[in-house]
């Protein structure tokens, strides 16, 4: 029945690279002003905050130090200059590749980031993967049998998890897996007594923090997938797919999930800030030598160079996350397009 003539024209629809590239380009252009605004904002807010860099720098010794001594250190650190000067100096130096020295870490910021960034990314990426995959899987299963026991348990657990601070989860996880079962190490990047970093050790030390961080991020993914899929299951396209005799799996994954996962894709981008917050807490609880844990310290000790660098990193992560989710969204829903 089919003719060769028609077949010539059936080359598959290619990914819309052009619009995607244009969107990415627009985002890249926007990134510069966003970064400028964010770093300046952070400098300004940190400057207006009551935290004192000198006090943080000197630690407990500063409590009994004389005022003269403190003033001298303030001048030495250069934090007595006005805010705009400091920001401008930082910016110009940063553009030449010099990110300054961190007063908290007592190390060049570039070194701090080089040493720690990788571990944070590893932790956050594994956690995110866990959250997305597990959340989606559970969400689909729960939506399939709305009101079933799995749905009820998982939903109640999701709201409970959302109410449970990451500290708590971490502590419980340590208590259960490291203490009661003794199967997983309780913290650190490697065994505390070991000095070498081997992939095996890192992997076993990664399990708990990544799981805790992942699970703390899970409720949003789970509940949005569940709601999206449940709604989609009630709509005509799914009715159509059912009528065609597709298997339950195809109906769920190929139709209900495909239409219902759109909010979840958005979450990929918009949960990045929460992920960073979570990483910050989890790194603290598990003594994970990542960079997120340094954020609070950098903030409360007004360590401008480190704070600015961390902000740049966080901003980049957020922008990339959002770009990724908008690209995925545009791909997943052709009606949205690549306009943003």
């Amino acid at each position: 029945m089919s003719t060769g003539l028609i077949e010539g024209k059936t080359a598959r629809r290619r990914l819309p690279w052009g619009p995607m590239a244009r969107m990415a380009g627009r985002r890249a252009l926007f990134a510069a002003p966003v970064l400028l605004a964010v770093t300046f904002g952070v400098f300004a807010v940190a400057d207006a905050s009551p935290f004192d860099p000198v006090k943080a720098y000197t630690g407990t010794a500063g409590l009994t130090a004389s005022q003269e001594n403190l003033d001298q250190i303030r001048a030495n650190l250069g934090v007595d200059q006005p805010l705009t000067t400091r920001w401008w100096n930082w910016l110009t130096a940063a553009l030449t590749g010099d990110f300054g020295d961190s007063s908290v870490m007592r190390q060049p910021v570039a070194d701090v980031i080089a040493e720690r960034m990788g571990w944070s990314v590893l932790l956050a990426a594994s956690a995110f993967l866990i959250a997305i995959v597990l959340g989606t899987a559970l969400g689909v299963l729960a939506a399939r049998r709305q009101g079933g026991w799995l749905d009820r348990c998982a939903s109640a657990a999701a709201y409970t998890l959302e109410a449970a601070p990451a500290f708590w989860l971490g502590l419980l996880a340590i208590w259960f897996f490291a203490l009661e079962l003794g199967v997983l190490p309780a913290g650190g990047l490697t065994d505390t007594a070991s000095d070498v970093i081997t992939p095996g050790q890192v992997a076993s030390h990664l399990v708990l923090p990544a799981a805790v961080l992942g699970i703390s991020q899970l409720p949003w993914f789970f509940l949005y997938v569940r709601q999206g899929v449940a709604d989609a299951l009630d709509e005509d396209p799914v009715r159509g797919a059912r009528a065609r005799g597709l298997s339950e799996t195809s109906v769920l994954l190929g139709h209900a999930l495909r239409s219902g996962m759109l909010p979840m894709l958005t979450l990929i981008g918009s949960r990045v800030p929460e992920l960073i917050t979570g990483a910050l807490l989890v790194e603290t609880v598990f003594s994970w030598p990542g960079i997120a844990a340094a954020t609070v310290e950098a903030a409360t000790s007004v360590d401008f160079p480190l704070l600015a660098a961390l902000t740049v990193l966080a901003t980049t992560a957020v922008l990339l996350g959002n770009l990724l989710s908008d690209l995925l969204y545009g791909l997943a829903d052709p009606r949205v397009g690549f306009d943003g």
Partner: protein
Amino acid sequence: MTAAVLSVRDLSVRFRMRGDRHVAAVTGASFDLAAGECLALVGESGCGKSVLASALLGLLPGNAQTAGSATVDGLELLGADERTLARSVRGRRVALVPQSPAAHLTPVRTVGAQLEETLRALTATPRRELRRAAVAAAERAAFPASHLDRYPHELSGGLAQRAATALALIGDAPLLLADEPTTGLDRDLVNRTVDELRRHTDDGATGRALLMITHDLAAAERIADRVAVMYAGRIVEIAEARTFFGEPGPLHPYARGLLAALPERDFTPIPGMPPELGDLPDGCAFAARCDRATGLCATRPDFASGLACHHPAAVPGERSAAHA
């Protein structure tokens, strides 16, 4: 007469509504569909045609209740569990061309992808061959292959209709339910599509049957063996297509009115309005609109010899028994 592909007995569907009321969308429908037969189901909008089709596929909304029985190949469809329906009824025993085809396609996937998926689910097409098979399936319903990579919202109304037909033809199901399969198509395409449907019915070695719900009486005349007329949830007449469209014409006053409303005939609507399905009269539901109605019509006429009317236009006995 060959064994019935579809056998419907006393099928009723009602919807539970707010305030404990019910809408009786289909009431006591009984008919058989033999292998190789094509039945056209006609009736005014809202009389329950689509609901009847949905009931056969187990695709009614959650507030629906069914009664009666319907069997295909000896398998009881009503009350079958979701698993049976999904694994061995839908697409495989009973295929559907839905009425709003665009709304029944998943908006975020291309037509081609949905065709290929259906092919994979219903036939043993190897992965490599999928595209080719999809093109062929599309071709059957006159869906242009160049539009396979379009998303449903990028299709014109007629294209979406053809896509839906293509999807329904894939499974080679013994029973094909086509709900308004010709909307949005020009006359050439209508003819082509209904011919394809007819061919599909005739081809089947094991015997296939077609239930075509349509308002397009010309198309019905073209392919249908018999015509069933539905009014207010009930089947009021089943007749041979030949006699229905030709002489002596339909017997039920309602069916006659329906034919008379055609633009090529009087182009005048049947006066009055169909009764609300939530509040049906005890007697003949058409009585209020019928110029032949008498006091007798306050009791409901039984469905006998293919007709449910106290005052048919001609004597039913003069026609050959229409239903199996």
